[in-house]
């Protein structure tokens, strides 16, 4: 097991006893339960570090929470929290527990362990209030469900380092699952529209003063992402990739966000803001770049210009046929 930090030696005395894990199943779809159960096998196969499930909160070294926490379940969790040892570590597992994702908009999900109060990026939806402050996890493992390897590694980290991993060591194993190539993005917002988990947000990065260059911020919240690949399928330019490699373990939920910035330019004609055309993508699709001025017009002005340029509908059609014949498609 490759775990960052100073604690990967299997002869560590802390390995001598199995780590006691209390699992709090708050509901959800059962997918996380499925993967947490696999920890049993990981523990059996492991040479050094082992864990065991306990049913008494008093004897637990770690509390593992997953699932969509409904208010009723939250009452039970609160009662349990009083019984834990104060030094007990807290691990939040799964998109439901960290960000609410799909189910949060039902309203009755008391929701996740990290609140809007902490300036959470997943709370793109500002109307969504989070009542839970008590359960503040030491570590987050995202995914829907997270892979057992990730959960195992998260456990291991908390067990060995009590969560006090140096920032560098923690970052050493963190890689993003979502790859975003901002140079290809059109800023069309299709991905934001389709995402069932509201894990994508396109926003104007700052207030624009006259004469200032603006930008659009594209944010992907991997904590809320279900890895359903709808966005990847729909994205017209293929600038999104869900590679499925890398770990999704973070110490703060904010670190799950992948960001990209699209620069805005002024339209040559109307001076309105528009996303700069991704030249690489256009070159790829058309084979060559059209006239530079063409790229500097906003979509509306481009339509007007092309209508003027082609004069009549018949001429336009002819032009189209010509193009099709040239490219043989």
């Amino acid at each position, binding site marked *: 097991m490759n775990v960052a930090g100073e604690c990967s030696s299997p002869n560590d005395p802390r390995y001598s006893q199995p780590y006691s894990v209390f699992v709090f199943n708050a509901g959800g779809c059962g*997918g996380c339960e499925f993967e947490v159960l696999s920890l049993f096998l990981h523990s059996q196969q492991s040479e050094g570090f082992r864990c065991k499930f306990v049913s008494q909160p008093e004897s637990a070294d770690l509390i593992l929470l997953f699932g969509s926490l409904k208010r009723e379940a939250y009452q039970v969790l609160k009662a349990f929290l009083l019984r834990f040892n104060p030094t007990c570590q807290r691990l939040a597992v799964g998109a439901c527990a960290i960000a609410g994702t799909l189910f949060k908009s039902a309203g*009755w999900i008391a929701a996740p362990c990290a609140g809007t109060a902490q300036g959470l990026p997943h709370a793109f939806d500002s109307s969504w209030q989070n009542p839970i402050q008590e359960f503040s996890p030491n570590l987050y493992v995202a995914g829907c469900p997270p892979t057992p390897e990730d959960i195992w590694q998260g456990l291991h980290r908390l067990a060995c380092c009590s969560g006090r991993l140096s920032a560098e060591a923690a970052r050493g194993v963190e890689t993003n699952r979502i790859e975003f190539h901002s140079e290809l993005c059109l800023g069309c917002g299709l991905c934001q529209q389709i995402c*069932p988990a509201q894990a994508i947000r396109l926003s104007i990065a700052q207030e624009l003063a006259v004469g200032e260059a603006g930008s659009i911020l594209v944010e992907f919240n991997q904590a809320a992402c279900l890895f359903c690949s709808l966005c990847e399928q729909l994205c017209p330019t293929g600038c999104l990739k869900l590679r499925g490699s890398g770990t999704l373990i973070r110490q703060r939920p904010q670190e799950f966000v992948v960001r990209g910035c699209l620069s805005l330019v002024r339209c040559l004609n109307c001076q309105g803001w528009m996303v700069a055309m991704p030249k690489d993508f256009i070159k790829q699709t058309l084979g060559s770049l059209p006239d530079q001025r063409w790229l500097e017009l906003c979509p509306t002005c481009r339509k007007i210009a092309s209508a003027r340029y082609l004069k009549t509908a018949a001429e336009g059609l002819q032009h189209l046929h010509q193009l099709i014949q040239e490219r043989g498609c």
Partner: protein
Amino acid sequence: MSPTSRLPLDPYLPAIGSPLTIEYDLQHGRVSQVRVSLGYAQRGIEHLAKKQNIWQNLILLQRICGICPISHTLCFCQTLESLAKVQIPRRAAYLRTLVAEIERIQSHLLPLICLAAHLNASSSCLRLLFEAREAAAAMLCLLTGKRVNYDVNQIGGVRVDLKKAEVAQTMLSMLGSFDRPLDEARGSLLRHERLKGLGFLSSQAAESSLATGPVARASGLARDLRKEGGGYAAYPELKFQIPTSSRGDVLARYEIRILEIIESIRMIRQILSSLPQGKLSVDPPPLLLPGQAAGSVEAPRGENHYQLTLSAHLQIEQIKITTPTEYNLEALKMMLMDAQPEDVPLIVASADPCYACLER
């Protein structure tokens, strides 16, 4: 002391329990009344489904249950496909069936693991069963790229493909890894005298309580939607049997599950050796039509039934989902009647209730 005492099974059962509360009254040391209280894990899936579009619904409905995700999307897709009157390509039907059958294996192994844990089986037995489940998950991962919540279905076909012959070969060789765990389960777990005659459910009781899935089949009802009414997906073209038993006890329910796993393995072999060529999805994409439709599939735990109305804007206007655990709840209560309190967990586990699909 009063003759009746009330005992709850905590919503948070020891170790990894499900948030499902079962309360029972005891009279003269026997269970006299059972109540199942719901609401701990309810997420409001039906409510959410109306807010989302069809594509997002595929992702949402799949997350009703992480143990049998494909049965939900399959049911949803088939319902909409029947409304749009499209016929999916044969290859897509085969791939759907393939995933559904691997899922069935994986789902049926879960109650066996619960049984092994409850009977304090040797850790080697438990480990074998866990490894079998891992093998099923690994097969799903090979095929779909995910172990759980694999997004396989889309309306009009599937989103995954089995392109490489090596993958099929690997999967075929992995099928062999289920033999030993199943032998072990039969040889050691199901030998326990305790399981015989426990939690009896007569076939009349199964019939009247609308029991479904392995619970109904263990009570002698040969009910299986994969055969009934001509079947669906690729089932009409596959050779398989519906195992039934007339004993109706805990043991019979586990035996039925093991036999079903064996049947599923047979089906997977057939599919992998004769996967038809062709498209993965209807082309062009199907034109959805508004209207009302219903559909059901045989999920690992039993019948999964969807009834929905699609509005003119192709939003879901109304949706009613009935899941196997919901059907089996009455049967579970009947089984528990007159049981001794120490047997209650065993009987409950044999019915394999799933909190996720019960409390959507």
